[in-house]
């Protein structure tokens, strides 16, 4: 029977090939969309890495999440280190991880932070040993692949998060100590160093006493300060062009040489913190809190519209495919009516006839 079916298929190769393609295309389209949707949700969840709250300068909460967690947007501004330190000491805070962003290297963002940030993403060294003290840096797997970078290599970062321009911080090159194993998170696309290295690249002296592993230990006064965003106009703007209209007046108020971080990634110290901490930060400080889970859900709901449209189109295509297959089957039935009758006359049983019709 299989030989008979094969003979029929070989007897009309073009319709068989076209029908196979049609079914494969419709199926692939549906699977691709489902997979993309699943991948997007999983990717967001991975990138959030159990962070409960992100604290940054006031602005758009979604922008804060995008810039500080997913590293796809510019930050809303900076927060003074002493404010960050004070917040880190709050009993409602279980863990506070500072991040300082504002530079890039050949398109990949440089993040100043501490080892806790790497622990968040369960980072492991694929090559070398993880060390981000001082000017040392580790490179995410995807970034390392694209940059073809090697252990021990020195490189000067460029000021700004995007675009072609930007001054290079030649005087403070970073040194590669490790290339990280792939994590399937945003870390794969980042270059991670210490907060102090970011400060020093921008001419802010990081005093020896400061330890970015513990933001609450820091109480230093620094000579100079640069906003970590490339898109802002700074007093010592390194000659950059600004890309957005943020006016960081607070920089001037606090002095251009103050130590700042871009954001604090916070894990709650207790379940109660989920209720009280965001409200407390928003009402009692100049800082702003953004809840990743909420903002991501909001973002996904925006994507959801597009996803719904795509699903609608795919469903339409699948329906068309279904109609085409039905038409093809109908045509096959019509065309093979004689054959079917013949095979019945020869003694073919219903299952054999059905297999011949379907194939």
């Amino acid at each position, binding site marked *: 029977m299989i030989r008979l079916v094969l003979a029929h298929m070989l007897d009309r190769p073009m319709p068989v090939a076209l029908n196979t393609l049609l079914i494969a295309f419709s199926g692939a389209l549906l699977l691709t969309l489902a997979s993309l949707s699943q991948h997007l949700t999983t990717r967001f969840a991975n990138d959030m890495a159990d962070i409960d709250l992100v604290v940054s300068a006031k602005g758009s909460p979604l922008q804060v999440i995008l810039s500080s967690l997913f590293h796809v947007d510019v930050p809303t501004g900076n927060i003074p280190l002493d404010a960050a330190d004070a917040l880190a000491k709050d009993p409602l805070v279980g863990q506070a991880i500072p991040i300082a962003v504002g530079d890039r290297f050949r398109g990949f963002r440089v993040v100043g932070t501490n080892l806790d940030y790497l622990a968040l993403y369960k980072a492991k060294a694929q090559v070398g040993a993880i060390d981000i003290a001082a000017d040392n840096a580790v490179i995410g797997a995807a970034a390392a692949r694209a940059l073809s970078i090697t252990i021990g290599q020195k490189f000067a970062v460029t000021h700004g998060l995007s675009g072609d321009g930007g001054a290079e911080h030649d005087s403070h090159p970073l040194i590669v100590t490790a290339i990280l194993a792939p994590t399937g998170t945003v870390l794969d696309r980042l270059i991670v160093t210490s907060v102090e290295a970011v400060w020093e690249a921008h001419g802010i002296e990081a005093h020896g006493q400061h330890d970015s592993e513990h933001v609450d230990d820091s109480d230093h006064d620094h000579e100079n300060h640069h906003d970590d965003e490339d898109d802002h106009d700074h007093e010592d703007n390194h000659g950059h062009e600004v890309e957005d209209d943020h006016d960081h007046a607070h920089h001037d108020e606090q002095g251009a040489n103050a130590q700042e971080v871009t954001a604090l990634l916070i894990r709650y110290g207790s379940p109660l913190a989920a209720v009280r901490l965001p409200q407390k930060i928003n009402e009692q400080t100049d800082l702003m809190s953004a809840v990743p889970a909420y903002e991501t859900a909001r973002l996904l709901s925006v994507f959801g519209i597009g996803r719904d449209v795509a699903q609608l189109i795919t469903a339409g295509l699948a329906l068309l495919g279904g109609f085409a297959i039905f038409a093809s089957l109908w045509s096959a039935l019509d065309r093979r009516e004689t054959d079917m009758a013949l095979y019945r006359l020869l*003694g073919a049983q219903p299952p054999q006839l059905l297999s011949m019709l379907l194939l």
Partner: protein
Amino acid sequence: MPDNAVISVESVGISRAQRAVLQDFTLHISAGVHQVIVGPSGVGKSTLLGLICGVLTPQHGRVIVFDKDLASLNAAARDKLRATHMGVVFQTLGLASALSVLGNLSLAQTMAGIQHDDAFATALLSDLGLADRGDAKPRHLSRGEAPRAAIARALIARPKLFVADEPTASLDPHWRDTVLDMVFAQAARDAMTIVMSTHDQAIADRFGAVLTLPQGQPS
């Protein structure tokens, strides 16, 4: 019904296209008989063969083949009976267009549930002048070759009953006689019963039992 009848058509009535083709028709064919049905077009020769094959169902009466009342069998069982006990040559020949001549023979063996006998297939084709046409598709056969291929397919499973609807109509006298010789030889060898329709008196003369329609009774 005679004891040794392999086919009993009893008081059958059947109408086709709102026209009564057979009415209260009775026929018994014993095992090993060579029965020919003659008569002008439209008298019911093909209808009678269709009833015997179980392809058609009578409105009245019953048809018993190999002790089985065909009306009591479902369609699949009738198809199975036909595949295992009968070799049929239809007026339209009904060769499977997707298969070669040898493929058609092989299919008939498969449907009959018997071991493939390639040597017998080759011998059949050779006797029917189709030795070099085994790999040809039916659409590439000539009008003289296609009926012979259909006859070979009907004989390949060594059926107990050979039913053929004017199988030699498009054959020249040489091949007509050769085909009949072959069929009679196999009938003698395998105790095969033959039921065949024809317009050709020369063919009818070679049969021991002749039924002339539309009289409706065996002669």
